[in-house]
């Protein structure tokens, strides 16, 4: 277990440990990088720039692809995909891959991770070190959570808000307090395993987009966090 560096004295020190990588997927045919990832209940979807690639997490085989621009975070609300492309969020029909609606991103293209929860979209602002809750129809900003690290992927699971950081070549998964932004728990990724996108499968795994490595990594969600 790693020790944490001393932070502010009035805050409890976050629990810190090394991320346990369970499995790696990819790189995928025709793709050089993976940005956002999401999970539709059965398959994992990875944004690879010009295609959303779906694979079966058990076999690792690619089962579907959708042609659409996908530069950063991906989210799934149970019916539709939401995908950051350039400076907009496209709402995509999973059956046809057609873009049904678009809203501008709050960061005008400086946005990174995306997830769906509680009827809202949550979007990471990479170098601005923020997570915004936005209205999926109008794009209006409902809430802002400050982080002290560059924010890439964002995901909610069991009422916990997790986000990935990637600064230099250091990456972590962090559980943060959705009200204060305080870091509650940290999972340190090994050097070189950087996280661009993040999604929980709703159970015991996180799926992490591996940026320029072109991989998706499955990371075990710590038990202590679920106790």
């Amino acid at each position, binding site marked *: 277990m790693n020790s944490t560096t001393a932070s502010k004295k009035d805050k409890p020190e976050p629990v810190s440990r090394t991320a346990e990588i369970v499995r790696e997927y990819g790189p995928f045919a025709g793709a*050089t*990088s993976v*940005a956002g990832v999401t999970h539709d209940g059965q398959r994992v979807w990875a944004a690879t*720039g*010009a295609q959303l690639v779906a694979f079966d997490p058990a076999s690792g085989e690619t089962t579907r692809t959708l042609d659409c*621009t996908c*530069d*950063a*975070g991906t989210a799934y609300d149970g019916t539709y995909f939401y995908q*950051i*492309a*350039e*400076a907009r969020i496209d709402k995509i029909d999973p059956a046809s891959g057609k873009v049904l609606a678009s809203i501008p*991103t709050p*960061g*005008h*293209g*400086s*946005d*990174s991770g995306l997830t769906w929860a509680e009827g809202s979209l949550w979007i990471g*602002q*990479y*170098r601005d070190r923020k997570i915004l809750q936005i209205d999926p129809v109008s794009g209006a900003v409902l809430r802002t959570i400050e982080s002290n690290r560059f924010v*890439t992927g964002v995901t909610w699971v069991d009422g916990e808000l997790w986000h990935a950081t*990637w*600064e*230099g*070549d*250091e990456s972590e998964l962090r559980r943060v307090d959705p009200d204060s932004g305080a870091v509650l728990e940290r999972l340190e990724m090994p050097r*070189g395993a*950087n996280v*661009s996108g993040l999604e929980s499968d709703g159970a015991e795994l996180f799926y992490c987009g591996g*940026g*320029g490595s072109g991989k998706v990594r499955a990371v075990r969600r710590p038990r202590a966090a679920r106790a």
Partner: protein
Amino acid sequence: MDSLIAASARALAAGDALGALKRVALRDDPPALALRGIAMAQLGEHPRARELLRRAARGFGAHEELARARCVVAEAEVAMAMRDLGGSPRALAAAAATLDAHADRANALQARLIAARQLLLLGRLEAARAALAPLDVRDLPPALAAVAELTAMELALRSLRIGPARAALARAQEAAERARVPALSAEVADARAALDRPAARRLFPGGEEALRLDEVAALRASDALVVDACRRGVGAGDAWRPLARRPVLFALARALAEAWPGDVDREALIACAFNTRHPDETLRARLRVEIGRLRALVAAQAGIEATARGFALRPRDAREVVVLAPPIDGEQASLVALLSDGAAWSTSALALALDASQRTVQRALAELEAEGRVRAIGRARAQRWLAPPLAGFTTILLLPAALPIE
């Protein structure tokens, strides 16, 4: 990395520099500045590209030393494209070390290649050789391997090591074909043409013969006593005496060699060595002194005998005597021949070697510079003259490897 940076990088990787620029044109965060810089470099806007890359490097935070190092490498490459060689070699070396520490082998090698090419462009051949020697080009992107081999070829060629030069050229060609970059293949073809161009003339009593570089090298490596008016020196095989700084001795050696096996009359020697048609006793005495010096210099390969009317060259062990001259006559051709050793020459050294006035040499250099056949580095008294590189030093095609994509 955020979405517009990803979209912009995707456009750049696909060769769409304008598309890349459009997406980040209004952004001033470091990754956007870096992408704008690289796109500008690809569009040929080098000064602007350099400024943007500098700002990007300054903007990256303490945790982002990898991104910063990549910007330093890209900026150095843009500077080289501008032929601005005044940058700090230490910054580039530090960037290479950082890239190594982060296991970014391709960019680390690129940084070191840029450093070696800078030294080559500065005429510092020994330092360039030392910088290039430890680089391991195996398993590298073929474009980088091709550039490394072209650099090795140029170094070998400058010192007339034709065999190694041809081997490096063959490897460069193979790598360029794998890289599928037309500009690189064109450079390899240019370099090959340079090998086949006449590099010197061999003078005979009744005529002359054009020689390619490998024929020159073969003659220099042979047992013959070579008096080379291209590189201003005398010697046989490994025993080579540069006479660039001793124009009188060289003029005498050349006159004796051209007359070989005959002799040269004293007055003719005085006329060619001291530039006068009115010999007197002091000049005769001076001639004896200079002949004595030349005799000492070439003693191992040849003797210089006094004859009834003058002096004659008598090579030892029945050696042949060969006289090499620049491919065409004239000051300009002599200057280009001298600079073909790849070293940096001052105007005064060139004037001394050619036994001409500095003014004359300056005039000839200015004309050659206007035609792009020589280059100057430095200013005023520190100015030095160099032959242009044999390989064109393709620039923009290497930049995408320095992309700050995380």
